[in-house]
């Protein structure tokens, strides 16, 4: 997965990104800032917990977008794990579609398939 994350690190606006397994194992990561591997793992794990809590409330979700001022945390859970990207910009639906267009082929090449929503496949 290192090759994929070498490429993901080059995507415009990416501060950091990671992919964690359902067991919480860090399978790949990259960071263009001082954010540590452990910090990324913790954040991804917290996002996974939020999705899990939502499932317990019968509100299923696979993707989350969190705005922290001008920065954005995006995550998406698939069967084989969760991808998370930390971006140095606000986002909208078009930016998200663009982001997944960049990320999905790279993860695909590593055998990881994330959900593609109808809006993204259009």
């Amino acid at each position: 997965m290192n090759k994929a994350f070498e490429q993901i690190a080059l995507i415009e606006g990416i501060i950091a990104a990671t992919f964690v397994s359902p067991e919480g194992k860090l399978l790949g990561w990259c960071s263009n800032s001082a954010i540590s591997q452990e910090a990324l793992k913790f954040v991804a794990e917290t996002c996974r917990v939020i999705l899990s809590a939502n499932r317990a409330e019968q509100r299923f979700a696979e993707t989350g977008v969190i705005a922290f001022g001008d920065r954005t945390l995006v995550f998406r859970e698939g069967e084989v794990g969760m991808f998370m990207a930390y971006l140095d910009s606000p986002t909208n639906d078009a930016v998200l579609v663009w982001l997944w267009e960049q990320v999905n082929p790279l993860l695909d090449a590593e055998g990881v398939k994330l959900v593609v929503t109808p809006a993204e496949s259009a």
Partner: protein
Amino acid sequence: MLHQGLILTSHREYAQAMRLGLLSLGVAQARVDVELDALRAMQLVPHQYNLILLDQMLDSMDGLQLLLLLKQQAPATKFIIVSDAQDETSRAHAYQNGADFFLERPHTTEGFRTALEAIKGLLGRHFDTKTMPDTLGAAMLSISDIVQTRCLSGDSVLLLVRSKKQSGDIFIYRGEVYHAQYPGKSGEAAFYDMMHWDGGHLQIRDLKLSHVPPRTIETSYRQLLEAAEKAATLDGGTRPPTGELLVLSGEVPLAASDSSVVLEAPPRGEEVTVSQSGRLLEPSAPTETAIPALNSHWKINLMGELVEGSQMSEPDRCAFISYFIYRKLADVAVTLEVDYFSNFTLFGPHLQQVLVADNMGVRHGVFDTAWTTEDLRNQYIQWCCEQSF
């Protein structure tokens, strides 16, 4: 019967053996999770489990202390403390902290068999109580009697009213009826309708109100009850149209009455218009953003208490999940060294959720994915921001 269980232990082999044993007790789709890390266990949502087996001593934490925390979050979950020691002090401490059973860690096949028999017995009792009707604590009473009693007592309560076909809410604040709502209507019209559901004999539960609800009903409770009684004698005659809501037929899923989509009541005395797309447009002041059509929405304060809301099927759960997410994202903000989140969108196949935070609390809106657009979500965020001011 076991549906979802969790084993929290530092002993991997025991966990594997116990997991297989527990699965044999469960229904076909039963799930048993194992967590070896106590810190990770604290991130789990304990109320999703109906059984949690917890070691008395975990690697990085005292299991009895963790039990105390988990039991507070999930009072309905059955907790079993598994111990390597059998001293009475530990046993007493476990029960004191909320354990339902104290088990000596099994090491042999016979030991596991005995332990599983004990767990089966515990779950059997648990199942019996869980299968009791959900009307426990809610009696079949005359709604007008309940409203009158509550108003006479000067109470502040939210009455959750359920008929055979639908459910609604009546907000009583300091002895007066402030607001009533059910999918499709709110205000006095909703109140009058609810008074006649199933002949006025309904399932009613009450929740203490700790905040001032929105006021859509100005009429005194006495006049309301009198009017409702008169209307009943006139065979449910025409109800006052105040505060009537519009339901978007065709676009709105109305399958579950508890969560069906309704639009917020427009301000009293103003006309309601519907756009070409069928959506409600509020003719409010041009500087104010109209609240978009939502399945449900609510607000909590920073202590996690529900402040207000609309169309919540389970207000306590709604408040809990918003507060849970808020706390988790506070941890994320600290880790990333950024300010607290301003908004958070969760995309799912059927629902989209938008949480908007300010320094007073968190608003949580739930949209139907099928007809939600980015514009609608942004409209909700803007509306939330305006409410903050």
